């Protein structure tokens, strides 16, 4: 059974209604449970759970400490291209936006990578739009091979691939895949993606499974917060995470919570997520998934990021630039979205230490995947 089969057994509106109907008793039961089920996640995401934010945070903190210790892994994205054939309404790379388009050459990619390497980063995330003519699997693999000597872990956040494409990535040296479904509501998904290959909901939904089958060691999923109701979206993210961790149990799973940021095209969130609800969502997912990596990007403010560290976050980006070529000579016009936390990697790592945590730059080794060694 793949996740599409499972998702089909749920009705989005019905799920939302069930979450909203959860009572304080349901929340208390979910909080007290030793192992939590999807029903418990519903309770923790419900309006009734809003009164339990502090006990949820306490437990999320304890669970994270127990499983991950006082460690925050730092990574940075490298944007390889902002060319895109999709029409995602919320994204600055939207093919309809009249912005300068750029795809980095291998030399430029390496120059960006050198900057990050000098900052201390050993985990990077390569990001692109979806424009096979500008950047295809072969070019991406070539970029990965080029960067391999600089980094211990290379992940990709790109267009969904066939299983063979992911195999090619693994062979080139990619160990992680990040792919957000954006929304688990089919109807809304169709509305948000009016044209381009990304219109295919199912193709995207099953991509993490194809990546897992191809042997990617880290799989990251998430929903774009601000599109559908956060309660239902977080529930489906949790369900998706459970499915992946059961079926691709050799891969480590992580979850991100990207909140919509101002971007070229001026998209306003349909369902804005407030800070307290954002905290609720993070804690609820930690309580469901004690072992998952929880990722926080520079989309969020420095103030919020400082306070979210003890609540279950295990990975953060720092000093990010979301425009191709941004580290070597930034151009705001080509960025995907505006970041909020603009502290340097050094400042972020210092802050992490001041909170009593260790900033971790390397938590993986190329030798794991090197079959020739």
């Amino acid at each position, binding site marked *: *059974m793949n996740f599409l089969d499972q998702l089909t057994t749920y009705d989005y509106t019905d799920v939302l209604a069930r979450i909203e109907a959860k009572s304080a008793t349901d929340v208390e039961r979910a*909080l007290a449970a030793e192992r939590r089920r999807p*029903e418990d996640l519903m309770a923790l995401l419900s309006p009734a759970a809003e009164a339990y934010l502090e006990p949820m*945070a306490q437990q999320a903190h304890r669970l994270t400490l127990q499983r991950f210790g006082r460690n925050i892994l730092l990574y940075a994205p490298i944007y390889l291209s902002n060319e895109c054939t999709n029409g995602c309404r919320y994204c600055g790379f939207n093919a309809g936006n009249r912005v300068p388009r750029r795809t980095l050459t291998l030399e430029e990619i390496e120059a960006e990578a050198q900057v990050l390497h000098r900052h201390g980063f050993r985990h990077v995330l390569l990001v692109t739009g979806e424009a096979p003519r500008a950047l295809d699997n072969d070019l991406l693999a070539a970029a990965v091979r080029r960067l391999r000597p600089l980094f211990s872990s290379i992940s990709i956040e790109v267009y969904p691939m066939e299983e063979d494409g992911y195999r090619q990535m693994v062979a080139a040296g990619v160990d992680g895949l990040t792919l957000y479904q954006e929304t688990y509501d089919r109807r809304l998904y169709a509305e948000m993606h009016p044209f381009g290959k990304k219109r295919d909901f199912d193709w995207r939904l099953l991509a993490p499974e194809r990546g897992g089958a191809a042997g990617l060691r880290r799989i990251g999923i998430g929903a774009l917060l601000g599109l559908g109701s956060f309660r239902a979206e977080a529930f489906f993210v949790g369900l998706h995470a459970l499915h992946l961790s059961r079926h691709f149990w050799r891969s480590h799973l992580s979850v991100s919570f990207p909140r919509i940021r101002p971007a070229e095209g001026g998209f306003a969130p349909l369902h804005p997520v407030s*800070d307290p609800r954002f905290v609720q969502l993070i804690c609820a997912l930690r309580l469901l998934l004690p072992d998952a990596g929880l990722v926080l990007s520079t989309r969020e403010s420095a103030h919020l990021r400082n306070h979210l560290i003890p609540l279950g976050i295990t990975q953060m980006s720092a000093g990010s630039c979301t425009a191709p070529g941004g580290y070597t000579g930034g151009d705001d016009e080509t960025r995907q979205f505006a970041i909020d936390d603009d502290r340097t990697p050094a400042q972020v790592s210092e802050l992490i230490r001041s909170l009593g945590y260790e900033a971790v730059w390397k938590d993986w080794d190329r030798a794991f995947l090197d079959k020739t060694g």
Partner: protein
Amino acid sequence: MDELIIAGRKFRSRLLVGTGKFASNAAMLAAMEASGCDIVTVALRRVDIDNPGDDLLAHIDRQRYLLLPNTSGARDAEEAVRLARLARAAGCEPWVKLEVTPDPYYLLPDPVETFKAAQILVKEGFTVLPYINADPVLAKRLQEIGTATVMPLGAPIGTNRGLKTREQIAIIIEQAIVPVIVDAGLGAPSHAAEAMEMGADAVLVNTALAVAGDPARMAAAFRKGVEAGREAYLAGLGEERRQAEASSPLTGFLRD
């Protein structure tokens, strides 16, 4: 309707019963009847599988019960595979409870030989229900190659000691993509209820019934234990309370 589904086949009862150790066939049949079970397992070494008139086999109504042959006594993969093939050749359905127990004292299952045998039998089209120690990684490896269930033990077979492997079984249940049937070691209906409350899909009991003063009555008691545990699981158990925490050191910043 809450049904147990194994390899696409539906069963009403979540209690499986073994047929060994009973004082008489009559006592065994009474226990089967009272247990409400749909699946009974028979050790191939105990029966003459080719002979429909076999003393034990002749008593089991195959219209009513799924006869699940087991390979108990097999010491390695080769022996287990041979037994399973014999059962199929004799007209049994291609279902097998795979047991490979080289250690004659505790009868603990051999993970390496069990895995090897499962690989072969799955390829040959058998529906394989492997008896294993409560090892979550072995459970995952087995379900990955296509076994229909995993059957972790609660305690060494025949010991009636209950869920001694509780922590490991909880992990298996949490991660399973096939039904988890707790097999071996369950000595009391409360043990069966405990396994079902944890979310096990079914349990298998033999010794506890066979050696009870009144096997049929004990079978009825186990039936209730299994049903009660399942209902409690579905209803959502209220767990023990932990201490409440009143102050807000972690979320106070939201009100800054």
